[in-house]
């Protein structure tokens, strides 16, 4: 009965592995909620208060600058990246390019996806140095957009490939041009495209390494496109190593906000995908 012992042990082992992963998740979320939620509950205004002059030293004021910085950087970056991602993904479909070409580009997209975000940070910083510019909101947008581009392109490409071939046949059969037909295919793939959009936004808003050197880690409110700014993950990173307990507690509050936003976004992507699925061929079944 040795085989059956192995089988039993294996079953226990995989259950333990899953339990471990779920346990860690609950621990991480629990600690974030308990610590961050506690701080926020005691003083919710820190989310909406601009930082004081000695914010990073003594925790005077709040971290509105990082909340706004995150929005002003990741929002535009997502738009820029989405336009590029959808365009690329459309070009990779068989209407536009050969199988060989799209396989080749997909290979490069995979590699870009696997490239560490810090590399994009260094790349954009190198551009900043080379052009003699200053770190600013603008370069944060560029860095995040580059970081999101392969992720969103992959999602969109997969969604477009999964769209029914008959949508193309139907529209071509009605006399649509390639471009007109493709616009309909993109609509048919909308749930997947939107899932990609929200995932890209979620990944972008959570990443610190790309913006660490490109936006300037400012401790003041964002003043303009070419002024220094900061984002929530960078703020958390900077505060986590502070010696001041008040500043560290702000890190937990910021972590709570960031986690809620990311989890909320994932929920949103599921809901949106479900809504759009109504219009998708076969989506209501």
């Amino acid at each position, binding site marked *: 009965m040795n085989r059956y012992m192995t089988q039993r042990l294996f079953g226990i082992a995989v259950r333990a592995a899953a339990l471990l992963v779920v346990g*860690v998740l609950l621990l991480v979320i629990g600690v974030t909620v308990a610590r961050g939620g506690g701080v926020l509950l005691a003083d919710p205004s820190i989310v909406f208060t601009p930082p004081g002059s000695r914010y990073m030293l003594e925790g005077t004021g709040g971290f509105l600058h990082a909340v706004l910085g995150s929005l002003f950087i990741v929002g535009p970056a997502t738009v820029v990246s989405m336009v590029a991602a959808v365009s690329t993904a459309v070009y990779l479909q068989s209407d536009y390019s050969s199988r060989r070409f799209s396989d080749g580009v997909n290979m490069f997209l995979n590699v870009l996806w696997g490239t560490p975000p810090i590399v994009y940070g260094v790349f954009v910083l190198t551009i900043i140095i*080379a052009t003699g510019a200053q770190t600013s909101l603008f370069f944060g947008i560029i860095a995040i957009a580059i970081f999101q*581009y392969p992720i969103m392109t992959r999602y969109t490409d997969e969604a477009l490939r999964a769209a029914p071939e008959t949508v193309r046949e139907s529209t071509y059969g009605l006399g649509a041009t390639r471009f007109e037909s493709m616009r309909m295919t993109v609509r048919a793939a909308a749930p997947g495209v939107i899932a990609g959009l929200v995932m890209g936004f979620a990944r972008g808003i959570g990443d610190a390494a790309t913006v660490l050197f490109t936006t300037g880690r400012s401790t003041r409110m964002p003043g303009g496109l070419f002024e220094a700014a900061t984002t929530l993950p960078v703020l958390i990173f900077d505060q*986590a190593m502070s010696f001041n307990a008040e500043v560290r507690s702000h890190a937990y509050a910021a972590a709570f906000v960031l986690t809620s936003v990311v989890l909320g976004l*994932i929920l949103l992507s599921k809901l949106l995908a479900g809504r759009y699925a109504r219009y998708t061929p076969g989506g209501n079944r």
Partner: protein
Amino acid sequence: MTTDTDSLQNRAQSSRLGRRLLAERYSSYWLTGAGYLAIALFAGITLLLFYRSLPILSEYPLSSMLTSANWDPAANNFGFLPAIVGTIYVTALSMLMGVPIALGAAIYIAEYAEGRTKTLVAALIDVLAAIPSVIFGLVALIVVVPVIGRYVAPVFSENTVGVGIFTVSLVIAIVVTPFMTSLSVESLESLPDELRETSLGVGATKFETIRSVLLRAAGPGIFSAILLGFGRVFGATIVPALLIGGQTQIPNSIFSTGQTLPTLIVNDFGELMSLPLTQSALIFVGLMLVIVVWLFNFGAMLVQQRLKRRWQYQ
């Protein structure tokens, strides 16, 4: 529906067609450009980083920089060995801890869990995969660091406050495990049930089926999941920057503090950016990261193709 004699109508129609065809032409220029964007980015990153690494590469021989343990940019000593060794330690330890857990959890979700439990566990793991790594770093500072400093390290008679190579590896493993799990579940679930039935049908146990049939059939997918995990471990920046201790020395044990290639950049970029040679050295670190990740990826694609052929099932 036959002849259209109204010439005005006709002209309106044809100018409309002309506009549509023009839209088709210009959109196709734009889309073609976008199609090459990924390749352009790849080439742009490599070339720019390489060009900006030239100052340091022309100043010191590559072999001596890679083998020297002396990192002191202020005194023009650029030895990358400590960071390289630190990176190898962290990557190897994280993968050792993360891969078996990820595989186990993936097998549980794909083959064991059922109904509600399955949906719930899979959703939780997807959520975990989406949490920003800086959150993990922050939580680890108050949970993992003291535990390791007070309880784990003393067991190995090591004296540490808790930050160091091992802590970093553990936390990075936690960061990438759900990510690898998610991807592995996808490839296991895409396998046809016939494979399971065939194997169970000849009297194999569930374990034997998973080990000798399913893990092979899903092999290429799992392989690329592990590979993407590797890319994330290797390039992890924020977690090691928070938890590794930031001392540029060759680590003498897995509990000692150290440096990885990404943390080298984080720690030294701010203050030393003004020194051109340091700047170039740090950009060269970026180039090293890029080259290793990209070589790994391209190599892995070849391996994957072979796996696909060898373990194909239909």
